[in-house]
């Protein structure tokens, strides 16, 4: 028999947990849900847009009643749990009925805090918390003129804005002298006040309320300083308190909230709790992103996978008032150990402040133009070292060379037909519709439903902004540390660490040790694990071809019509008449449809069938041509110019240097594709400054450049150092490639890797530390001793036959 799970609270946190449970195991529990409100589950953070008339209740429902039916969940709506018998493991409902549980989830959320002023219990004094409150406000607006909102925080200002939209005259009373002082500094607070006042909102602060006066129904509000404000409705929006009444009553340990550990378990092991009612590591949360992170962890433990931990959340806030953009995150006040970067353009109404410590973003406040909020937030959560782009950081991500997308960063003004995801042809309208219709709240969901940002990923920032713009600022951002895929909770770095420390020498051993939650991983994690194990233990021969993407398994590039391309290596971009003849002969013999010169200075043959590949390779081998690894996360090409052998400007023999680099590095597998170039002079014809490792020859020696790439997002290299001899170039090249191989995440090119760890880090390990450079280079050469076998030759001679031949030919 299935175990029984009872959920107290039909809100976002409780239902998100149920959804996460169903994702993991639909058979784990008989689920019963009790909700005090007479509705299905709705998106509470969107109540403000409902009040403002921008959205309807239907639009903010997450799970309608049919959803509960479809998922075999018993929903008791409009019913309140009055007691829990923890010994007998049952809950007692206000109608007297009793229900048994094996596990109990308390998700009672929070209650608005009502200041016990004289007159707080008059008719017309309400909070802003649920659909009922919104209905009352909309009702009041039909018959009344003047509203007072007590509280100039996020919720209060959203309520005030909504009431104005409904046609009321609104006065906001705020105790402090800065609006939203928990999210804003005084400069941004003043700008916000100005724009709200321009819209007709009256704001009094500091303003302390003395009493609410009325005969049965509220009539006016009296301040401590004697001022009186007429009011036919008073909204108290001064804060929320975790709703712990029930938990406290039945003796579950509570402080400010219900105290839970990192698995969301309360002090009663059978009782879990998530959402605004919990207190975790001393913190309580009132935003939606943390709730989703808690839900995920809680579900993981309820279905007894037992591997997720909730370690607290970093949160950000946006105000959901149409036309006013503000964003805040983290510690935006700072202290003596922090620095402030400030950008202010009063006439445009733009203000940005970043608080940095040790060149890492600790907090941000933005007003007026918040399109880069999610970027700053990412920098903050990932603790990215920003020293390399510090001087530009205040101007936003588009000023870092986001080629092709920079101008489009004005999401709100984009036309619905504007293409967001160029890979999959997804427009802004497609994404917004899908977010609305499918009630999407996370980037992952948008990717699954629309495919936007699921291919090359260059539009991820735009999609995140669209999501934030469409569902409001509290959309769920990815957890602080992203797991490698859904098969595990562990991050790339954790997995690499475990492979190293625990001598995990195969994919299987790694999955077992790290307790993978799928039997054999997925197409995302298996190639990564295969690489990580192989990189750490090159001598172990662990390579698993079934865990490689088809191109690397077949040593050729699959094309859209399921044929393949063949690209032999041309060392340093050079070739010979014999090689060209062999290529021409193969092209003739196999009736190759397209012969194309690649950007990496070699020749590609397109349209070969898989069965033909081994023969083609055999014939190319005879002329001395070997695999160019144009299909792999591997060393691709070393582009060169003709250097001082021919060129009147050449300063060094860049051609021979390129050949030597390629001879040293070919066959090496890397986290992502890896390209090099050597230019003979600063005119840089080989385009060495957009390569992963580029050499620019100068009269005095060689400039070494790292971390560049063309492609999706062009990034110009950083100058690593200048060296005197070609031997040094080779040593640095080997060491740099090895540190990248050992430390970058799978599918992370050198450009984003360097942006993540910082150029200073790379310099410290490669340039400043000579011994470490030599050790890295030695490890690279050791790995190469196992890697430099031409894969084409082996297969031309009959290896891996099953990969290239069909199993059976059936005749018609």
């Amino acid at each position, binding site marked *: 028999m299935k175990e029984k799970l009872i959920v107290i609270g039909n809100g976002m946190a409780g239902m998100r947990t149920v959804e996460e449970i169903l994702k993991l195991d639909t058979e784990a529990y008989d689920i019963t849900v009790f909700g005090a409100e007479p509705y299905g589950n709705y998106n509470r953070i969107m109540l403000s847009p409902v009040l403002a008339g921008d959205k309807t209740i239907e639009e903010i429902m997450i799970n309608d009643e049919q959803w509960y039916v479809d998922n075999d969940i018993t929903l008791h709506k409009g019913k309140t749990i009055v007691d829990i018998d923890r010994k007998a493991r049952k809950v007692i409902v206000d109608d007297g009925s009793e229900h048994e549980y094996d596990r109990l989830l308390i998700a009672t959320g929070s209650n608005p805090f009502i200041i016990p002023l004289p007159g707080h219990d008059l008719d017309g004094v309400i909070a802003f918390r649920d659909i009922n409150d919104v209905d009352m406000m909309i009702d009041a607006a039909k018959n009344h003129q003047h509203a007072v909102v007590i509280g100039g925080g996020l919720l209060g200002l959203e309520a005030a804005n909504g009431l104005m939209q409904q046609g009321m005259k609104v006065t906001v009373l705020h105790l402090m002298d800065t609006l939203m002082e928990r999210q804003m500094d005084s400069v941004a607070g003043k700008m916000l006040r100005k724009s709200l006042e321009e819209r007709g909102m009256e704001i009094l602060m500091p303003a302390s309320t003395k009493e609410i006066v009325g005969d049965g129904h509220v009539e006016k509000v009296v301040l401590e300083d004697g001022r009186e404000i007429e009011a036919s409705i008073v909204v108290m929006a001064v804060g929320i308190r975790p709703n712990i009444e029930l938990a406290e009553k039945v003796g579950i340990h509570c402080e400010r909230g219900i105290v839970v550990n990192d698995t969301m378990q309360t002090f009663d092991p059978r009782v879990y709790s998530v959402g605004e009612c919990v207190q975790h590591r001393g913190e309580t949360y009132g935003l939606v992103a943390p709730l989703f992170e808690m839900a995920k962890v809680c579900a993981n433990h309820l279905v007894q996978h037992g591997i997720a931990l909730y370690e607290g959340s970093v949160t950000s806030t946006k105000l959901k008032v149409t036309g006013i953009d503000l964003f805040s995150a983290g510690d935006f006040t700072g202290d003596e150990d922090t620095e402030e970067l400030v950008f202010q353009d009063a006439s445009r109404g733009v203000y940005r402040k970043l608080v940095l410590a040790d060149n890492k973003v600790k907090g941000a406040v933005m007003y007026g133009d918040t399109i880069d909020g999610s970027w700053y937030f990412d920098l903050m959560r990932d603790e990215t070292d920003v020293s390399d782009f510090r001087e530009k950081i205040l101007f936003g991500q588009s000023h870092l060379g986001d080629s092709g997308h920079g101008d489009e960063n004005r999401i709100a003004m984009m036309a619905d037909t504007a293409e967001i995801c160029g890979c999959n042809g997804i427009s802004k309208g497609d994404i917004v519709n899908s977010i609305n219709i*499918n009630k999407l709240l996370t980037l992952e969901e948008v990717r*699954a*439903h629309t495919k936007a940002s*699921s*291919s090359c990923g260059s539009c991820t920032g735009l999609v995140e902004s669209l999501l934030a713009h469409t569902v409001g600022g509290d959309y769920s951002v990815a957890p602080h540390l992203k797991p490698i895929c859904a098969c595990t909770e562990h991050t790339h770095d954790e997995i690499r660490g475990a492979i190293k420390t625990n001598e995990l020498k195969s994919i299987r051993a790694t999955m077992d040790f790290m307790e993978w939650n*799928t*039997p*054999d*991983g*997925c*197409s995302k994690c*298996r*190639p990564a694990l295969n690489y990580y194990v192989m990189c750490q233990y090159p001598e172990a021969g662990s390579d698993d*071809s*079934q*865990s*490689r*993407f*088809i191109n690397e*398994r*077949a040593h050729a590039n*699959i094309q*859209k019509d*399921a044929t393949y391309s063949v690209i032999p290596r041309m060392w340093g971009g050079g070739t010979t008449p014999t090689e060209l003849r062999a290529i021409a002969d193969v092209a003739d013999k196999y009736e190759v449809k397209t012969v194309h010169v690649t950007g990496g200075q070699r020749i590609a043959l397109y349209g070969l069938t898989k069965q033909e590949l081994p023969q083609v390779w055999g014939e190319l081998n005879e002329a001395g041509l070997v695999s160019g690894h144009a299909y792999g996360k591997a060393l691709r090409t070393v582009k060169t110019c003709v250097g001082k052998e021919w060129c009147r400007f050449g300063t060094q023999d860049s051609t021979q240097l390129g050949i030597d680099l390629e001879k040293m590095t070919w066959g090496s597998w890397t986290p992502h594709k890896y390209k090099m170039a050597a230019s003979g002079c600063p005119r840089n014809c080989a385009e060495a400054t957009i390569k992963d490792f580029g050499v620019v020859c100068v009269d005095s020696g060689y400039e070494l450049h790292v971390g560049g790439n063309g492609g999706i997002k062009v990034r110009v290299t950083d100058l690593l150092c200048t060296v005197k001899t070609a031997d040094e170039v080779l040593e640095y090249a080997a060491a740099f490639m090895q540190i990248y191989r050992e430390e970058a995440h799978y599918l992370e090119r050198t450009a984003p890797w360097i942006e993540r760890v910082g150029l200073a880090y790379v310099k410290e390990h490669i340039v400043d530390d000579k011994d470490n450079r030599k050790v890295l280079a030695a490890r690279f050469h050791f790995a190469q001793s196992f890697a430099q076998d031409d894969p084409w030759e082996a297969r031309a001679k009959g290896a891996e036959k*099953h990969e290239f031949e*069909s*199993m*059976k*030919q*059936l*005749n*018609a």
Partner: protein
Amino acid sequence: MSNEWIEVGNLNDIPQLGARVVNAPDGDIAVFRTADDSVFALRDECPHKQGPLSQGIVHGDRVTCPLHDWKINLDSGSAVAPDVGCAASYPIKMDGEIIFLSLTPNEDCPNHD
């Protein structure tokens, strides 16, 4: 040959978590082998853009298409939600390690002829 069982090979012809192709008169059929040695057959065409499913990475009871990462259930041929589509699936019969295939597709793939 509608309901005939055709011998197409031995279990060990297919690598675990891999696939092989059977060239049938009406088009290629991909024959998959999972980690627990279950064998499945699907038309070798992804419902999305006709990518060759036989070339994908097999994981659990699914295969990921090599062209655009659609995930296809090996038993039914249906795409994993939220993608929608279906590759025809074919009955497989095992006699010990010998694999038999029927060329009459299962009928649970409504949008495929």
